């Protein structure tokens, strides 16, 4: 007798839980939720990408044209595809010492898989991802970018 009651209970609660699920999905037909589909080419004027979007690698510069890169080359070593190349140069400082600074930070967008290891491993937070994601160009050479701006310098106080 007990097993029969349990059997019927099973059926009842099974049906109830199925109906609960159906109620949720069916309710979207008369009370649609917020539509998540982006109508992309039409809405590109006011499209705001989410903050974490890995669009392309950039090197943020402040308004005095200074960046954070100390040219250590960790990003180049951690890149699995070899899409980053750090070209340093050596200069003489005022107190007569030799110092290694960044000459060119070359980023090959065409090879990048946007894994983010470079950004994660950068000891001075010199690299970041921008949310710009429209990369199509007609010339492959345009995909090779120099990330540091011409005439830019290392920000004071990063090295200590």
């Amino acid at each position: 007798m007990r097993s029969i009651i349990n059997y019927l209970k099973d059926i009842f609660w099974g049906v109830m839980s199925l109906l609960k699920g159906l109620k949720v999905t069916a309710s979207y037909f008369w009370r649609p939720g917020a539509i998540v589909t982006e109508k992309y080419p039409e809405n590109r004027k006011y499209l705001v990408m989410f903050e974490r979007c890995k669009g392309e690698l950039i090197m943020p510069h402040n308004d005095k044209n200074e960046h954070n890169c100390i040219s250590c080359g960790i990003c180049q070593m951690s890149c699995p595809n070899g899409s980053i190349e750090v070209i340093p140069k050596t200069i003489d400082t005022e107190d007569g010492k030799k110092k290694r600074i960044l000459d060119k930070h070359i980023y090959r967008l065409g090879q990048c898989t946007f894994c983010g290891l470079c950004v994660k491993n950068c000891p001075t937070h010199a690299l970041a991802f921008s949310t710009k994601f429209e990369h199509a160009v007609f010339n492959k050479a345009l995909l090779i970018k120099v990330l540091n701006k011409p005439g830019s310098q290392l920000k004071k106080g990063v090295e200590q």
Partner: protein
Amino acid sequence: MPFDIYDFTSFTKWIDTSLENAMSPFWTTVTEMAIAGVLFILFYAVVGLFLVYAERKVCAFVQNRLGPNRLGPYGIFQTIADLIKLLFKELIPIKNADRFLFNLAPYIVIIVNFMVLGAIPYAKGLHAIDFNIGIFYIIAVSSMSVIGVLLAGWSSNNKYSLIGAMRSGAQIVSYELSVGLSLITMVIFAGSMQLSVIVEAQRTGWFIFKGHIPAFIAFVIYIIAGTAETNRGPFDLAEAESELTAGYHTEYSGIKFAFFYLAEFINMFIVASIAATIFLGGWMPFHIGTWEGFNRIMDFVPPFIWYLGKTFFVIWVIMLFKWTFPRLRIDQLLTLEWKYLLPINLVNVLIMAFIVLMGWHF
């Protein structure tokens, strides 16, 4: 020309007599069969394309998306573009496949579909063959589609296809029982297997209302078992993408794949239209007892529209099943059938027989 959207009997009779005046009886039969065949092929294609579109839209609504929205208003031409793409695609020959059976399998599935479609009453007088054993015929013929599925799996020379086909076989064989028994419940209630008689008996009220609780239980069981029989989610083990890539039609490409794909949707349409015919009154308008004015208004809607409306309502419910519930495991699937649906069904048949015996229905 006598043409009435409420009663096609005079219209079909008029075609028959005018053809008979023009040619010999043999050629009359041939021409009529050709007309019916062309109509059914058109109906098949249109319904198939529409259902693919409807499924994508229903899925989108459930998941808060927009669905197809590029080709034409609301993307209504999307499936036509898909069909054209499939027509142009290459048919890839499979190494070591059994060529004859491989090519035969999609046609068996499609032929079964047509055989069932012919026996369904679409409106008054719009009924290709009205067998006196209509329901029995439908049960018998629709279970033949498993042969096509098994052939497809067996001849593909692919382990995934074979596993998919075997699962499909186990599933259809077990759920066929539930479909049959739930229909038998209604046959007991209606006292006839002829579909036109069953529809006519629902003039005063649909069977789902007239038959009390047993009819409702039979309806629910029929919908569940019918969903399983058409290999649709949550019972789509036969083509579980995550396990078997595509199940029995893994190796099919181009238009042969489209045949299987269309056949799946038409199977769903068939299940829905049988449910609509037997439980929801087929093409009969919705009538409430003695409300004369209300019944009059309902009579103005053409029967074909009633039939399609009910069918698409059932299709909507079946689609909702697919996009709401997660897929069952094979043991859960068989447990559901043999431990739950079948015993409930047997008790249900008994209760229905008792109700009919005592005359407790309306």
